[in-house]
């Protein structure tokens, strides 16, 4: 029986044995950055009604700032 991860690997032709991301490690690292477990859980549970969008507009993708270069405070205050 396939787990979800194994199935994903099979579909995507990925190596199932490659190192996987560890949640415990993420929590530990988050805590070293000043986040407590509840903060982290709250963020990770924010499953997404506001999920990152894809835009299928006609035309090339547009520059939105924050790329290899710099953003401006004026971009952020909008």
């Amino acid at each position, binding site marked *: 029986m396939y*787990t*979800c*991860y194994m199935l*994903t690997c099979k*579909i*995507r*032709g*990925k*190596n199932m044995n490659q190192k*996987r*991301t*560890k*949640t*415990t*490690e*993420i*929590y530990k*690292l*988050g805590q*070293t*950055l*000043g*986040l407590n*477990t509840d*903060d*982290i*859980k709250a*963020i*990770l*549970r*924010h*499953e*997404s009604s*506001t*999920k*990152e*969008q*894809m*835009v*299928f507009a*006609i*035309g*090339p*993708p*547009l*520059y*939105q*700032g*924050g*790329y*290899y*270069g*710099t*953003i*401006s*405070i*004026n*971009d*952020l*205050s909008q």
Partner: protein
Amino acid sequence: MQQKQHYTPGQVVWELTLKCNLRCIHCGSAAGKPRPNELSTKEAIKLCQDLAEINTKEVCFMGGEPFLRNDWFQLGREIRDRGIKLLIISNGYRVANDTISKLASLQPYAVATSLDGGTAMIHDHIRGTNGSFKKVMGFLSSCRAIDLPTTVITTVNKLNMNDLPLIKELLLGKNIAWQIQVATPEGRFPRNYALSKEEYYAVALFITSLRKKYTKKELPVIGAHCFGYHSRAFPGIGLSSTWNGCVAGTSILSIKSNGDVIGCLAIPENYIEGNIRTRSIIEIWNSPESFSYNRKFTVKELGENCRGCFYGETCRGGCMGMSTAFTNQPHNTPFCFYTIEQELSTKNQLKGRTL
């Protein structure tokens, strides 16, 4: 029949010189000495004219250290006189007395400087020069004193990741934009200092927590292009809630100090499209053959990390710089929230139920 796309450069990132007065551990350009045969002032002015011709919206001067080029102010004026927004990234070290007033007269859209540690110990170590932390803090104060739109860029690696909370304390309430980005193993930066996937995801958690805790006025912080993509937990960690693929060569254009043209300064030299000494930037930008890795991308080009992904067609394998630096392949970033969350969610780990 496929409609011909019309591309406009949103931001042109221009390496004015490779000359630099610091030797940062993470420098992707391995800056220090100027490139042989850097553009003359006359050639650079012609480039400014041509950039206006292709309707460039913003030009970002970087280096090396752009202030080490004697004609930086003249070129800044050429840019501004053509109605193009000007952004400048400096290391903030040894800035001449009159630089701040010259900057102010150009009315820049952003003045950015690098801050890679919350204390002198870490920042100076990464920057390879004692006293650079003090200098950069002074530069930030000078910029804010006359209300220049100021940005701090922090390039995160294993050495400074734990300093992020300290840097936050330095920037809180100062009305300084904070751009957090990931150091990639190119140039001088050794791979063993690069973040792991867990560290990468934890930094994203940190950014998200700050965005929840503070208003944009208190702490305007974003993750750069290297933080993404299609996360369930933190959508829109950058400026926009959308990610439609790397924009190198579609709305970002980069120029090296010797006139080489490339979609992004973070990608390898085999992606150089030409040199403005032999073909104008107008010709290169408008050529149907240019920047084909993004302009003519097909899902067949996705690498192992991204092949078969639901978002593959629009995402195009995340940031090209990250992808090529870590895997030597385009369209194959190993750092992706969507993939990480898929791995985490196999045992409901994402919700923390295993803890």
